[in-house]
């Protein structure tokens, strides 16, 4: 018996599942290797149609390994390798996800780093509490995996899911001066000195400890009855998005007109209760979710983001297809509500939080027009109905061959400088992404 097989048998014994049974029709043990390759290029413009003021390009490779020694057992690992030729801080190599998953007919167990996604809304999911995000490019909003232990029990169409994340891992944000999505001012007016350029120095003293004391737990029950999908969930953990407390200027160089400000990111303890639903009605699908978040108010004297808040996202979508051609048209619209949402303030406010509460009330539109099997046009738009800031994302998607995708699109942001998208209104850009999976 090889060492690998001995390890497997040991795992089975430890987990108390007995000898694996060979189920009819399943493929024997197999190993799958694959790689995702991606190149991105962004051109930042003075305005839509204006001249290029800046650009960023990056190459990403994600090799992955799936080993399924038995139908019920999967070992998976992938490594993200990114070289950003413009922002060195975004160049990283790390284990994107790596987990062992054991699936039985009525229960499953997994341990490791995996992407967990809760909720049924198309975007802006209030119950999606375990999924992490990489905000170093806010608009791309890439999801990140979380280190978890997960157990599920299924009976009929119902599933009970329990998740324990032993050590807190935050969202990825950047405070680098050359990053366009920090949500922090690049300059400020210092009396007697004038306009100075700002850099930020992170003080991590208030980050949750990297110990079991920072653990988070969540439980979710989901099911389907009479054409309705539904779930209820509870979570005790942290806001993954940091709330940044701006402290005094650490260093200042009047001659060079630069200053460094100390930042103290904090992640607040929260308790979340929520649920979601989805239902097909005629040719439409309605879906939504809501969550109420109780917060640990670190500073009772402040209002806004420290208060409990309620979020709701709901909407409907429909796909219209052609009988005689490959054409189809998808249309979806969502309404998002976020109470107690304070917009990020200027530098003189004590706390800023550029990412936690982007909306008070927003409309999200998502359309996709497929012309042929290989060409489609997508359009997504976000409009904050209170502050009137917006983001629109038109793009052409071309699949010249299977597994290869080329996307040419743009991101246009607008609104007052004090609004969520408005603060990034100088970040209008054209973008190109080429990806290939094999």
């Amino acid at each position: 018996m090889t060492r690998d097989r001995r390890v497997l048998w040991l795992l089975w014994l430890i987990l108390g599942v007995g000898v694996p049974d060979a189920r009819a029709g399943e493929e024997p043990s197999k190993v799958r290797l694959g790689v995702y390759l991606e190149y991105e290029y962004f051109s930042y413009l003075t305005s839509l149609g204006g001249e290029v003021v800046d650009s960023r390009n990056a190459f990403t490779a994600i090799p992955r390994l799936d080993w399924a020694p038995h139908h019920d057992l999967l070992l998976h690992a992938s490594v993200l390798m990114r070289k950003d030729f413009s922002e060195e801080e975004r160049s990283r190599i790390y284990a994107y996800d790596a987990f062992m998953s054991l699936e039985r007919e009525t229960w499953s167990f997994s341990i490791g780093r995996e992407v967990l996604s809760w909720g049924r809304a198309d975007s802006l999911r209030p119950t999606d509490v375990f999924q992490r995000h990489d905000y170093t490019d806010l608009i791309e909003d890439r999801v990140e995996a979380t280190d978890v232990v997960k157990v599920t029990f299924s009976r009929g169409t119902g599933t009970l899911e329990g998740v324990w994340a032993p050590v807190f891992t935050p969202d990825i944000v950047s405070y680098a001066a050359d990053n366009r999505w920090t949500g922090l001012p690049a300059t400020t007016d210092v009396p007697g000195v004038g306009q100075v350029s700002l850099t930020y120095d992170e003080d991590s003293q208030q980050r949750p400890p990297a110990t079991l004391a920072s653990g988070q737990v969540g439980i979710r029950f989901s099911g389907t009855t009479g054409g309705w999908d539904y779930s209820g969930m509870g979570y005790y953990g942290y806001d993954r998005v940091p709330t940044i407390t701006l402290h005094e200027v650490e260093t200042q160089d009047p001659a060079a007109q630069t200053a460094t400000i100390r930042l103290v990111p904090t992640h607040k303890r929260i308790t979340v209760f929520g649920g979601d639903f989805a239902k097909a009605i005629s040719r439409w699908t309605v879906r939504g979710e809501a969550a109420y978040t109780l917060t640990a108010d670190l500073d009772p004297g402040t209002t806004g983001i420290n208060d409990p808040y309620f979020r709701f996202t709901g909407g409907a979508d429909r796909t219209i297809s052609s009988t005689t051609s490959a054409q189809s048209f998808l249309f979806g619209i969502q309404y998002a509500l976020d109470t107690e949402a304070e917009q990020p303030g200027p530098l003189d406010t004590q706390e800023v939080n550029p990412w936690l509460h982007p909306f008070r009330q927003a409309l999200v539109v998502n359309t996709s027009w497929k012309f042929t099997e290989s060409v489609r046009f997508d359009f997504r738009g976000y409009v904050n109905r209170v502050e009137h800031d917006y983001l629109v994302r038109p793009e052409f998607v071309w699949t010249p061959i299977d597994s290869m995708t080329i996307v040419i699109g743009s991101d246009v942001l607008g609104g007052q400088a004090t609004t969520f998208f408005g603060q990034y209104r100088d970040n209008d850009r054209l973008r190109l992404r080429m990806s290939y999976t094999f």
Partner: protein
Amino acid sequence: MKPAPLRRLVVAIALLLAPWQAVGQMQADAQTRDAVEVMRRVERQETAPDEQVRFTMRLIEPSGRVRERTGVVYERQVSPAGFDEMHLIRFYSPADIQGSGVLTIENQDRDNDQWLYLPAYHTTRRIAPANRGDRYMGTDFLYEDIMRERIEEYRYRISGEETVDGVPCLVVEATPAAERLARESAYSRKLIWVDPARDLVLKVDYFNRDGRLFKRLTVTATEKVADKHRWRAVRMQDLDRQHETTVEYRDRRIGAGVPESYFTEAYLKRGQ
């Protein structure tokens, strides 16, 4: 009003023809009953408690360019006594859709339930049951081609006998009868070639709503598994677009026990 002699003549002719009309009607009724019985036998032959099969699907464009997908289909009856089924289709390739799947549960009393899983989104998504006439995942099949055909929703008649690749077949004409089907179907009628010895469909011609032939399904190979006759290879041609889809099946297992848990969102999300 017609003159009396002519009226008498018309009545006389009608009286003379009445028995022949009655005989003709009886023959038509018998044909319909026979056709329905043929289709019921096909349905019984096609039905199994559960079934699983791997497939290789090729989408062939007029230019000759071929796109290939591989995957597996799991099926199971919703209840042992009925014909409604649950289907899970899981794709193995191409690489960018590996692990994606579509779960469909047919319902007798309401629209089907359907969910889609795309690994890139890490979650399942309920989707509205597609229009019958929608194309199925970029293939030349429409959703109504892969859904179970409810016999009570069609009017059938036997329109003749022909051979398909040397196999004697009954040619059954199927016309939408149910109001909703007639409204939603992309077809005004279908001609179905049934091998009565095996109760197996070997060819189908599809006529669009203008009555023009626009699609043709041809079974190019068959197999017998667990006393059931099945397609091993099939070609669907879109005669308008000059586009075709071929499907080859392998490793078919019938009644080998597909767990009920496969037809849940939780299993769909596993992506394996």
